[in-house]
C-alpha cells in the first residue's frame, strides 16, 4: 500500500483528472450498457408477449 491517506489516493500524484476521468467514464459506459441492455431485454419480452396475446385473440 503506497498511499498515505485518502487525499493522497484521490489526488493520484496530481494526475487525478486524467486517472479518475478514465476510470469513471469507463465505469459509466459499462453501467449504461448493462442498464440499457436490461431494459431492452425486459421491453422485448413484454412486447413479444403482447404480440403473442393479440395473435391468439
Amino acid at each position: 500500500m503506497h498511499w498515505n491517506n485518502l487525499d493522497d489516493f484521490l489526488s493520484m500524484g496530481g494526475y487525478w483528472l486524467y486517472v479518475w476521468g478514465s476510470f469513471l467514464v469507463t465505469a459509466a459506459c459499462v453501467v449504461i450498457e448493462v442498464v440499457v441492455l436490461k431494459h431492452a431485454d425486459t421491453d422485448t419480452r413484454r412486447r413479444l408477449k403482447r404480440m403473442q396475446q393479440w395473435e391468439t385473440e
Partner: protein
Amino acid sequence: MNLYHFSSPSTFYHLAGRLTPWFGWGAALLTAVGLYISFFVAPTDFQQGEAYRIIFIHVPAAWMSMFIYLVMAFWGAIGLAFNTRLSFMLARALAPTGAMFTFVALWTGALWGKPMWGAWWVWDARLTSELILLFLYVGIIALWAAIDDVRRGDRAGALLTLIGAINVPIIYFSVKWWNTLHQGSSINLMKAPSMAKIMLWGMLIMAIAAWFYAIAVTFVRVRRMILERERQTEWVKAILDTQVEAS
C-alpha cells in the same frame, strides 16, 4: 461434441442463458481483483508517476476493440458462407460492445496523452486507425438499423465488417510501419514484456475481465435477438408464457 448442435438458436438460447451469470459474475470478480492490483499493489511508475495507471483500462479496452471486431468479421464470414442465422446474430450482438471498448480506448488514450505528450489527440497512424475502427463500428450498426429486411441487413453488415477487417492489422502494426507518437507494444509474443510483472498481471486480469464482460453482454443481446427472430416458434412462445408472468 457436435458443434452444429449449438448452432441451433433454441439450443444456443438455453446454453447462453446458463453461461451468462458465470461470465457476468466472473467479470465482476476479475474486475475487483484487477482494480485492487491497479491501485493498491502496482507501484508508481518511475517515469509517468500515477498517470500510468490509465493503462490498466486503456490497453485491455484497445485489445478488446480489435479482438471483438475480428470475432464479428469471423461470424460474418461464417454467416455469408453457410447462411447460418446464429452467426449473423452473434455478429450483430458483438458490435455495440466493440464500439464501447473502442470509445473507451480512445477516451483513456486522450486522457493519458494530455499529461504525457502534452496533447489530447494527434493524427498519428495508431490513433487515426483506431478512430476509423470506431467509425466502422458505428457505420455497421447504422447499416443494420437502416435495412428493414433482417436477412439482407445481416449480409450487408457482414460484408462491410469483412471489408473493414483490413483496418485491424493496420491498427496493430501501425506503430511498426509508421513513425508514430504512440509507443510500440509493451507486450509481444516474441519477447519478454518490457514492464514490471505485477503491472503486467494487473493488465492481463483486467483484459480477462473485459473478455468475460463482453461475452456476458453479447449473450444477453443475442438471446434477445433470438426471441425476436424466432417468435413464431413454439419453443419461444412457451418461454414467453412462463417468463413474462414471472417478471
